[in-house]
Structures are given as C-alpha cells and as structure tokens.
C-alpha cells in the first residue's frame, strides 16, 4: 500500500505515546496506590505515625504524684490534668532532656509554652459559669463577683477562683 510509511509513522508515534504514558504513570503513581482502594495505602501509616500530645493524667501523676493523688481522691477528678494545663508531651520531653525534674519553675522559665500553669480563673469559668443552655447538674456561679460577695468575701478585679479554692480538689482553702 502506498501509505504504509504514514501508517508506520503513526503507529510508531502511538507506541511512543503509550509507552511514555505508562512509564510516567509508573513513576508518578506510588507503588501501594490502589491496593485497598483509590488511595495510597501507606498514608494510613503516615497518619498513625503522629505522636499523641495528650499523655493522660496517669502519666502526669507518675511525677506529680502528690497532686495526682489529691486530684484523684477529690471531687474535681472529672476534668483531666491536660484540660487546664494543656497537652503534656512537650513538658515530658523537656523534663527528660533537661533533667530539671523537680524544678518546675525552671522548666516554665526556660520553656514557657511547655505547660500551662493556669490562670486560676479562666479555666474555671469554662465550665462553672452559668450559661442558659447548660444542663443544670453542675455547680454554677452567675458571676465571680456575685459568688465572692455571697460568701462574704471582697471582690476586686484581681480576684481569682484559686484564691479560695484548691483547683485540684475544688475544696475551699482555709
């Protein structure tokens, strides 16, 4: 046939395109893509590799055993340590790396963000301030000022909940 050369060229071009496509595809698509579905299977392991930042109250109590025991025995044991103090992972690493264990002031100065010491009022308000939509099983106060004055105290703008209450047991300090 007169046009055989044209066809040969076209077929050659097609082969090059197809082979090129397959080569590029093999290079671009990860090996484990499509094993269990239209995704990269090792992405699950990637996600699982992240280190949990909340270490749990038991881990906190390993070092802070006195506070841990008081917290557990008291009536304020429902909120966990990290609810108020923030995640403890960095704190444990800082403690381990600096071997400043037993010197919390030094840790806080060196790594102010390693753990949150708490403001002594903001954390309490999250749960204990009366809000209309809240179920009424918890102990609520309408405002800090009203609460302080109700109990015969003197309220100032610097008044904090922990002035009277132990935050770990919620007991009134004497």
């Amino acid at each position: 046939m007169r046009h055989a050369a044209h066809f040969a060229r076209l077929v050659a071009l097609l082969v090059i395109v197809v082979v090129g496509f397959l080569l590029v595809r093999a290079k671009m698509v990860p090996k484990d893509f499509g094993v269990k579905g239209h995704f990269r299977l090792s992405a699950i392991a990637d996600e699982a590799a992240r280190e949990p930042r909340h270490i749990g109250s038991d881990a906190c109590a390993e070092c802070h055993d006195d506070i841990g025991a008081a917290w557990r025995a008291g009536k304020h044991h429902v909120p966990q340590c990290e609810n108020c103090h923030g995640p403890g992972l960095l704190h444990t690493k800082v403690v381990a790396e600096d071997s400043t264990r037993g010197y919390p002031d030094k840790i806080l100065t060196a790594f102010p963000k390693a753990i949150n010491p708490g403001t002594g009022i903001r954390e309490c308000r999250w749960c204990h301030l009366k809000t209309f939509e809240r179920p009424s099983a918890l102990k609520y106060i309408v405002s800090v000022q009203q609460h302080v004055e109700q109990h015969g105290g003197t309220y100032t703008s610097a008044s904090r909940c922990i002035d009277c209450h132990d935050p770990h047991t919620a007991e009134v300090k004497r």
Partner: protein
Amino acid sequence: MSQLPPDDVTRRAFLETVARTGGQSFLFGSLFVNTALLRLPQAGTDAKARAEAEVGKGVIYGFVVDTTKCIGCGSCVRACRAENGVPDGYNRTWVEQYTFYPDGEVFVNSPNGGEDGFADPAPTRNKPTGTEAPMRGFFVPKLCNHCIDTPCIQVCPVGASFKTDEGVVLVDHERCVGCGYCVQACPFGSRYLNPETGTADKCTWCHHRVVRGLLPACVVSCPAEARIFGNVSDPQSRISRILATNRVQVLKSFLGTRPRTRYIGLDSEVI
C-alpha cells in the same frame, strides 16, 4: 476543479479501510478504556452491602455525641487544637449553642468555635434583637461524621481522601493538591484547607491515638461524657450498649451520606 486524491482508492476500498482501522482502534482502545469504565459501576454498587461486609471483618469505629450532656465548656475544641495542631481560625471540631425564644426564633452561636467557652454572665439574658428571655437551649458539638457514603472522597481528583477498613475518613497529605473540592463537597463543613500545609485537613477521630489504644483527645477531655467513641462492631463495647439503649439521630440524614457519628437528643432545628 481541484485535484482529487489518486483514483486507485475506490470508494469501497476507502470505506472498508475506515471501518477496519476504526474497528481495530476501538477494540485496541477498549482494552484500556472499557475495563476502566466497567470497573466504576462495580465499585459503586450497593454501598450498604459493602458496609455490611466491612462490619463482619473486624473493628468499625463509631462516635456518639450526647447533646443532652454537653455543657459547652469547649474542652474538646481546645484539646483538638492542641492535639492536632489546628491553626487558629480553623476547627476540626466545634460547639454550637442553640437558643430558643418563645416567639419561635432560634439563635445559633459558636464564637471562635466555642474554644473560649460560652461565657454568659446573665442567665436571664435577652434575645439579641429584643427583650424576650430564652425559653430553652442546648449545645451541639460538631465534628467529622465519617460518612459511609462520603461526598468528600468521591470528588477528590487525586485519591488523597480515603476511608480505612475501620470506617475512618482520612486525608493523604502527600497526595493532596489543595484544590478544595472536598471542602466544598462536605455538607457538614467538617473540612478546611490548612494554610500551613496547603492541604485539606479534617477530624481523623484521632487515628494516631486510636491505633495506640488511646481515645480521641476530645473524648478524653470531655468532662460531661458527652462524647463516646468505640468499636460499634463489638456488641459488648460501651458505644454499642449506648447505641442499643438510646434513640440516636444523624445530621442531615436526607442527604444519604450515612454518617457514623450519631447524636443523642438532636433537635429538628439543628442543622
């Protein structure tokens, strides 16, 4: 008259050639194309049967939100942000405050996702636009529903969104190109584009914690036990017992996404 092609090609021969090469290329092409096309309906057939097959295999995670217990403290939102490094202004989980007034108006509020709590110094506060006092109200924590029939996975053009065998919807941050289709496809607003990574991000039910035998950060931090997470394919698990003894509802059931996150005490006004 212009020059015609050489006359040794008859009309019959020309048509035969066209038909033959056309047929050959169709058959050749169909080796690649048709198999791909035929696979699609198979992959989509009867999601219910697939889900049931999944249940038989092992662990299927579920999440129950008890709106009657939520006190709106925002502990879950803060824990989630810290655990997952969620950038400010974005949320994997958030708490909505619903307030009902006697005239039938409903106000929904979620300042900063509820992260700073819902400070409300006056329990008899007035309606934002009038003087009426609220009639009733409650909090609704929201998070990814980890749907069985996910719109977000369907629209992903690069296969970066997927579902694990345990029913958890995850994002592959290496493959994600940040097109944002999934963010728009999710009818629950559960996804966002993380400005730090440029990829889509969402609640993972703390997959990295769950694989280590821990509970999700929001579940651990909830002081009201309003969030329950567990294996729903184990009839003895706490979540299974809760699901067996409560009447539960899902968000936007009319969309047919079949969420795995279920709600106790969900009001019809909750969207």
